[in-house]
């Protein structure tokens, strides 16, 4: 099963880890037109494997935490860039939610 999962991955994603600051450009269809959306924040965790892998990006907008879960291999992710490498000691940075 793992071999098949790997063969389904046609997309190359940049190497990123929890703690990294990333910028993601997604495209989606709204009615007829295709719109693009940018999301910038810190990766607080990756979970799953193969085509089922997802990662969570967190940012704070106007004092309110916003989290977005992306499927890693989703074709809606048009572009992804790592702005800054993080230095963390945990795989899941859920403690960021409690920090003010």
């Amino acid at each position, binding site marked *: *099963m793992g071999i*098949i999962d790997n063969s389904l991955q046609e997309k190359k994603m940049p190497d990123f880890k929890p703690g990294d600051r990333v910028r993601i450009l997604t495209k989606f269809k709204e009615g007829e037109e295709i719109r693009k959306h940018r999301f910038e924040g810190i990766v607080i965790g990756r979970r799953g494997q193969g*085509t089922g892998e997802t990662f969570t990006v967190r940012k704070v907008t106007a004092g309110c935490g916003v989290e977005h879960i992306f499927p890693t291999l989703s*074709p*809606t992710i048009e572009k992804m860039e790592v702005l800054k490498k993080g230095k963390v000691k945990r795989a899941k940075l859920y403690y960021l939610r409690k920090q003010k």
Partner: protein
Amino acid sequence: MIGLIGKKIGMTRIFDESGETIPVTVVYAEPNIVIQKKNKENDGYEACVMGVGEKKRPNKVYSGIFKASGVKPTKIVQEFRELPQEWEKGNQITVKVFEKITNVDVTGYSKGRGFAGGMKRYGWKGGPAAHGSKFHRRPGSIGTSKIPGHILKGRNLPGRMGNCKITIRNLKVVKIDETKNLLFLRGAIPGATNSWVVVKCK
């Protein structure tokens, strides 16, 4: 009608162009071999016997089936009705036959659950778990008293569950991998991983 014998590999997901996730079951169908073609004169009906896999130590009776066709004894032997006439004895049939097919039916043996209670087997609600209740997962009353004086036949009761033949109809063929002999079908199919299934379409 087209049919193949395959093996359930497992489930995963793939994405379509718009980013929607499609849950798929992967079926590995190595080239099936046509062992025998039954016809009206000899057998009384028309059918096509297909085989797949390698039988390691076939006994004499088992090998006899394959003698006439000159095919090596296969692990699985399955008879299909109304397969295409042009499939001849000894032919190898690959997943390519499903190339232009959109929907298929999959038959397999469901996972055995052993001796299961009524709640699991028939979806009964059961009783309250707490608050002094003494009625949790039991069947309860199974019939009336004097009239009719016996339990009606076909009454749902605990018993062996699963491990029976199940057909799931109209599964969408999402993708075909000819080099690896894989079929990607939308949704779940009966049976455990590595169990044999029959994929058919009209």
